[in-house]
């Protein structure tokens, strides 16, 4: 009997090696764009560009030229440099804020979904309260209280994202916690901590990460909106949102000042969405049985 199993397992070995990549061209373009944005954001200091804060009052709203590849903005600052440093801000806030949501929301969701009962009711209830709070008012209130800074902005957006991650984690945990492999772990005498970390977490992580990427896209938009309204990053730090806001005044004279950041914004959000969607589709266990 053992020999027959061997023969069949060779098939299994051969088959899984040929797993097709269902990732299309669009996915790779999105990855490419994201890689570019990351690269320039990280290497910003090393790139041979004028400083984003150098104001050249003689060259305000200057056209595209050799010195200023994308021209200058309303205060004579190099547009391309500001765009690149803006990428940095967008990415930092865009990644760190959902990270807060992922860690705190994910943990709360998993624990709520696993233990259920009163703890779950408490968690879900408090998340509902948080969700009911108008986010913009919260942002305004906090900024008014502790001032505008990247750190404060990241924290606000992070906290606002916790309920969504909690929901995703809890939903995934609820389905998994009743599956037999969890009961098997309990029957083996595993502690709750062990079950949460070693049995549940690996399964809940993928949907959480897929949601995280979508969360990044949403956060970048949120940060952009807040900066556009003047509630985000304080000047002279440039963020794409604030650049769009500033570019509003020059729309008739130099529309590129608003369009370039908007375009970069659009592409980056789209890229994150695409990658997030693809990952979500891949994590759906669709093992087609005939």
């Amino acid at each position, binding site marked *: *009997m053992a020999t*027959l*199993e061997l023969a*069949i397992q060779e*098939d299994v070995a051969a088959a899984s090696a040929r*797993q097709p990549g269902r990732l299309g061209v669009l996915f790779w373009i999105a990855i490419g764009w994201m890689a570019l944005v990351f690269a320039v954001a990280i290497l910003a200091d090393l790139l041979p560009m004028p400083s984003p804060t150098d104001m050249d009052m003689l060259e305000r709203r200057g056209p595209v030229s050799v010195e200023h590849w994308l021209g200058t903005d309303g205060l004579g600052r190099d547009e391309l440099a500001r765009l690149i440093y803006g990428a940095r801000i967008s990415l930092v806030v865009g990644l760190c804020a959902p990270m807060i949501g992922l860690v705190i929301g994910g943990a709360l969701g998993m624990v709520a979904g696993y233990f259920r009962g009163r703890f779950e009711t408490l968690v879900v209830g408090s998340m509902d309260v948080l969700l009911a709070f108008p986010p913009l008012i919260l942002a305004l209130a906090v900024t008014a209280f502790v001032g505008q800074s990247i750190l404060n902005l990241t924290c606000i957006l992070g906290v606002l994202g916790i309920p969504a991650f909690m929901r995703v984690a809890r939903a995934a945990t609820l389905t998994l916690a009743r599956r037999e492999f969890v009961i098997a772990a309990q029957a083996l005498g595993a502690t709750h901590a062990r079950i949460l970390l070693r049995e549940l977490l690996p399964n809940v992580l993928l949907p959480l990460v897929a949601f995280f990427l979508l969360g990044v896209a949403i956060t970048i938009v949120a940060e952009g909106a807040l900066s556009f309204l003047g509630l985000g990053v304080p000047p002279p730090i440039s963020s794409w949102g604030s650049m769009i806001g500033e570019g509003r005044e020059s729309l008739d004279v130099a529309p590129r000042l608003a369009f370039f950041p908007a375009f970069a914004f659009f592409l980056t959000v789209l890229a994150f969405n695409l990658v997030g969607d693809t990952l979500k589709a891949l994590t759906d266990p669709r093992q087609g049985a005939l």
Partner: protein
Amino acid sequence: MNGAPLLSVEDVAVELPTPRGPLRAVDGVDLTLGAGRTLGIVGESGCGKTMLSRVILQLLPKKARLSGRVMFDGQDLARIDRERLRKLRGRSLAVVFQDPMTSLNPVLTIGTQLGETLQEHLEFDSVHARTRSAELLAAVGIPAPEQRLAQYPHQLSGGMRQRVAIAIALSCEPKLLIADEPTTALDVTIQAQILDLLAREQRRRHMAMILITHDLGVVAGRTDEVAVMYAGRVVERAPTPSLFRAMQMPYTEALLAAIPKLDAAPHAPLPAISGRPPDPTRPLKGCSFSPRCRYAVARCHQEKPALTASRSTDHHYACFHPIQLAAGADA
């Protein structure tokens, strides 16, 4: 039986494209069924029996490629237009699936689901449909049928739901009923009741029935003819008594032997079939059962045996070395 058979499946094959290559889920199947007769199709998971039922119902997945003819009541179901097919389904051709929880719509009441078939195919008005629905529920043995009409599937037990599914299937007096593992999800006492119900209704309505199952015990007392499927093909087909008394295919014999019997002594080792059912994306050159067959010889691994019949009987089998279980059986 007089005239042409009600259903005639002729050299039907279904091919599905998969990442690992084309998969022949059904590989050249021929079957006939006369009006009022019962055919049992027996096989394990992956043998193609469910796909075959989908062929008859023309409910194949989009990417499936079908070849062969499916003659039902004189028409080739694979070739007629959608509208005619839709009229046939539910009216002359009915089906009962394995899991009544998923085959009934959980958000519609029983009455609505029963009524819509009647209204669609027989053009009943809603009052008439309601009365008839209650009659149908009573006929399938559901107590207090009027109350049930207003209930939802989740309020009924598994056995009850399956009865409702049968009532829906029978509501338009079909000529052919396909029951795809109708009792696999049910308890053994309920299973007996449901099978009795199907047999009774079939006799009353002179309806043809195809009973698909993995359980040889289910087909033994309740079918006229049995077809055993393995790896997409019919490997043995015979009138039921002949199949059990003069089994020819080693697979059928092994399948029967592997079922624990109530009259066997405890702890007797079961004669298991070694290995696993074959991978349909990797068809073998020879007989599909040869890797697991204890009678296999070199020829079995090289050539595929065709379905042949012994001279005087209706007993077809696809094997180069059939077993003779009855004395004096033809080779």
